[in-house]
């Protein structure tokens, strides 16, 4: 247990009849970046709020930095930092004043605090802006201050709730880089929530996939992907400009094919088994008059993992979601199967 920074036991939060977090048990190792991945409303933020003592669990327990979140909430607070979805900053104060306020709430001696604030500001290259008001900053600059604000007490564990939400691509990359640097330089344990597959894939050592308040899968990104592809199944994406139902059904009827997903008017994703599966596929397509423009041999993405496990897309706007044309055969890539 000593290598665990966080462990939860049947952690549950109910709001009236609605169960936001449903008997969740997991552990976060020291110095790892742990991702909670899931769509909006999956319970990620509620889980983080309980772990950071902002919300009292309805049931179950959690230990953070060796302290119980309910019985020793004061102790927990000394060891954690929170980067919330909403920025925790006062717009009309300067960057330095913001850092100073929060530093003082942690009872850091003023000389130590002053030095630490300078160090944190230079860490994110914001020294020049230290005495400017937050409301004069760009969103990316604000988020950099927001992140170092959570580091003012040098926390062992940093909670990040959707840290790149609403940022432009450049700032997003910057913040991700910052998160990685904090993790490497300070050995800070991090719990990060995101609904972005790429972000979880890029940053997290291990990922817990959350859906409807439950953690439905938990492993490293590589293991999660491996778990759905099976040993011999391969995933191809074909671009066929003249795609029609007869071409589709010809592919579906192949014995080697375990599932076909039509992405849009011209793209299909095919999961097939066997060493000669690619040849068989191409033969079948050509025989039915399909003009193949491009072919990709796909590695399964976390998106596929999520779809595979939960049966639905991560994003709520499911209108553009691939429509499962056929449920796969045994051992294949089956979109609607739930895994325990």
């Amino acid at each position, binding site marked *: 247990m000593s290598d665990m920074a966080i462990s939860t036991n049947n952690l549950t939060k109910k709001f009236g009849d609605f169960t936001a977090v449903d008997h969740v048990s997991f552990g976060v190792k020291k110095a790892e970046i742990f991702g909670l991945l899931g769509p909006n409303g999956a319970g990620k933020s509620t889980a983080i709020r309980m772990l950071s003592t902002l919300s009292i669990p309805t049931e179950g327990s959690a230990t953070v930095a060796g302290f119980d979140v309910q019985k020793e909430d004061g102790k927990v607070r000394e060891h954690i930092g929170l980067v919330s979805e909403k920025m925790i900053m006062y717009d009309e104060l300067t960057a330095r*004043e913001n850092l100073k*306020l929060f530093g003082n*709430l942690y009872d850091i001696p003023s000389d130590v605090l002053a030095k630490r604030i300078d160090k944190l500001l230079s860490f994110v290259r914001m020294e020049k802006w230290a005495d400017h008001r937050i409301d004069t900053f760009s969103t990316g600059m604000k988020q950099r201050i927001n992140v170092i604000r959570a580091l003012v007490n040098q926390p062992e564990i940093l909670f990040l709730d959707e840290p790149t939400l609403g940022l432009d691509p450049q700032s997003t990359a910057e913040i991700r880089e910052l998160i990685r640097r904090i993790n490497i330089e300070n050995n800070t344990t991090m719990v990060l929530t995101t609904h972005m597959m790429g972000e979880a894939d890029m940053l997290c050592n291990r990922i817990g996939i959350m859906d409807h308040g439950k953690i439905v899968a938990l492993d490293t990104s590589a293991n999660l992907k491996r778990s759905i592809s099976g040993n011999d199944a391969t995933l191809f994406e074909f671009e066929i400009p003249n795609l029609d139902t007869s071409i589709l059904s010809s592919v579906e009827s192949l014995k080697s094919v375990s599932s076909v997903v039509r992405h849009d008017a011209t793209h299909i994703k095919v999961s097939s088994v066997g060493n000669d599966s690619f040849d068989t596929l191409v033969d079948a397509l050509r025989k039915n008059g399909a003009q193949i423009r491009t072919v990709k041999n796909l590695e399964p993405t976390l998106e596929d993992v999520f779809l595979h496990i939960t049966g639905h897309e991560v994003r709520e706007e499911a209108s553009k979601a691939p429509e499962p044309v056929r449920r796969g055969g045994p051992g294949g890539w089956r979109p609607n199967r739930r895994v325990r």
Partner: protein
Amino acid sequence: MGVRRVLRHSAWICWKDLLEFSRSKLRLVMLVLMPLFMMMMVGFIFPTGSTISHTPVALANQDVAVNGISLGGDLVSNLTDANNKTGMMDLRVAAGFDDIKTMIQDGKVSGGVIVPPNFTADMLAGRQGYITLMTDQSNPQTSAMIQSVLTKLIEQLGSRVAEDNLNQTYNVSGLEAKAVLMPYSVQIRGIVPGNPNYFEFVAPGIMAMVVMMSLMTGLPHAISYEKDMGTLDGMLVAPTSRWAIILGKVLAQSTRGMIQGFIILLMAVLLFGVVIHGSILLVILLILLTVFSFVGLGILITSFADKEETATMVMMTLMFPMMFLSGVFFPVQQMPSYMQTLAGFLPLTYAASAMRKVMVLGAGVQAITPEIIILAVFGIVLLTVAVPMFKRAMNR
């Protein structure tokens, strides 16, 4: 968690709130303008005392002279002379009842005086001379004032005539005649020097009210706003007591309220000629006590209202009855008895009354002990209810 630590944290939170507040010039200007407007509004809009000035009044003299004697004409000229000295009315000549009626309907005059045709005849025959006052029923306040002013004026003129009669008939001196006619004479003397002034009445109440408002609007706003913005989480996730947060906010809001209170005090003295007869120290202590008695209510609203909008609505609903029922603008004693009972349940009633006693009447601690006790009890009871509520609300 040590008390000193809570105090230190609350001081930092107060520092933050005041710093944030001071960053907007507009807010600072409003901090001064709000009490100024308030004083001007209540000081000038509400009728100050029972005086009228240059109010148009119609005067119809229908008296018919008897043997060259016109007592009605004497009355009218005396009335005009007396009025010219005070400038209370602008007298306009009218023909009679119907004429004055039209003038009142047209809004040209606020009332009228009619000296009837048989005025001189009646008086010479040893009867009373009747005079008719006409009033504008659509404006009861002005009517009442004109009525009292004219009645008093005509009575004065009447007793002067009587004095002359006594003097001539029985050869008694003017002073003796006065003593015969009006054996009682009333002199008015306040317990502190100076004439009563509406600002003196209203300024202490407004001070108490501004302190109340800054706590009742400021506190729920400050906390629910931070809750909505998400910044409250930053404080809650730090090893800071919930009490340090609320205390910090209370300190910041009280400071604001007290600054406004003192601006009112200063303006009352410098601009509106209010004289403070009591001890300034006692006034400050009373302001602090007022803060204490309202803190619980502020926290209670904060705990109930999850969103800023809700908090604002709850506070508005509570604040207006409090403002008008507590005797800040109108004396509680003049309200109907059931309203007086209701006013008895509002802490502001006691805060305003104690403040007034100290500032206007120069009262000491003994005189306001009941108010002090009641305010303290209000504070303790409200806090006892509010504390667990707040704790529950913070842990959702």
